[in-house]
């Protein structure tokens, strides 16, 4: 995973915002290195991350795969069929062509990291512009670990490359150790 960002997609209204979503859905967009991670790997994470066996409570929380090309469409449809067969249930996931993505407000980006003001401050000193902060691989990784994802061995291996101070490293490691212990 190289970059991550959250936003809104799938609707028809222009420039949606959190309190004016229209018919858009909350969406995650990731840039990945296809030589390391495959689209099928991401689809696996997609199915494991939520339960689409029930219709969405609202359009805001719909389950949707936005394919960017024919190959993504083929892989998404095949994996959707496999997932339905595995679960023995109809899934309420839409598979639709990607058209537009609207970046969510700053306070939604790297949400877990934003609960650690010291770490945010360190990264904002490196990346004063919000768009650079959001596009940082280091920031995305740290946000993921703070959210309890990943594993401690990889974190320790990559820690030097994240650009944090000694105090920042300690905070990241101690928080990750607590959340990954569960």
């Amino acid at each position, binding site marked *: 995973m*190289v*970059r991550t960002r959250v936003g809104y*997609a*799938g609707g028809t209204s222009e420039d949606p915002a959190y309190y004016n979503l229209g018919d858009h*859905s*909350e*969406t*995650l*967009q*990731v*840039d*990945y*290195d*296809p*030589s390391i991670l495959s*689209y099928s790997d*991401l689809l696996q994470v*997609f199915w494991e*991350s*939520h*339960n*689409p066996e029930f219709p*969405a409570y609202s359009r805001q*929380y*719909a*389950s*949707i*795969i*936005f394919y*960017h090309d024919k190959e*993504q469409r083929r892989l998404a449809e095949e994996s959707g069929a496999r997932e339905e067969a595995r679960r023995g249930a109809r899934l309420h996931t839409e598979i639709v062509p*990607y058209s537009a*993505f609207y970046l969510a407000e700053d306070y939604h980006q790297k949400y877990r990291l934003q609960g650690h003001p010291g770490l945010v401050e*360190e990264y904002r*000193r*490196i*990346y004063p512009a919000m768009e650079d902060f959001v596009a*940082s*691989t*280091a920031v995305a*990784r740290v946000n993921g670990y703070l959210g309890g994802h990943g594993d401690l061995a990889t974190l320790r291996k*990559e820690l*030097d*490359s*994240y*650009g*944090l*101070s*000694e*105090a*920042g490293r300690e905070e990241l490691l101690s928080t990750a150790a607590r959340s990954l212990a569960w």
Partner: protein
Amino acid sequence: MRSAAKYYLLTLCLIAAIAAGVVHASTKERQTMSERWIPTAIPSIDAAAPAVTETATFALG
């Protein structure tokens, strides 16, 4: 009377000196803390980010 005034002035000077010392120490500590770590370069994982990536977009319910 003159002696009392001198004592008063001396006390004022002492308080001012202590206050100045506290402010100086506090400023020095802040400077030391901020100088402890000043980023000079982007994180190496960002510098090594691949030039070519693919994009995936999902709404996860």
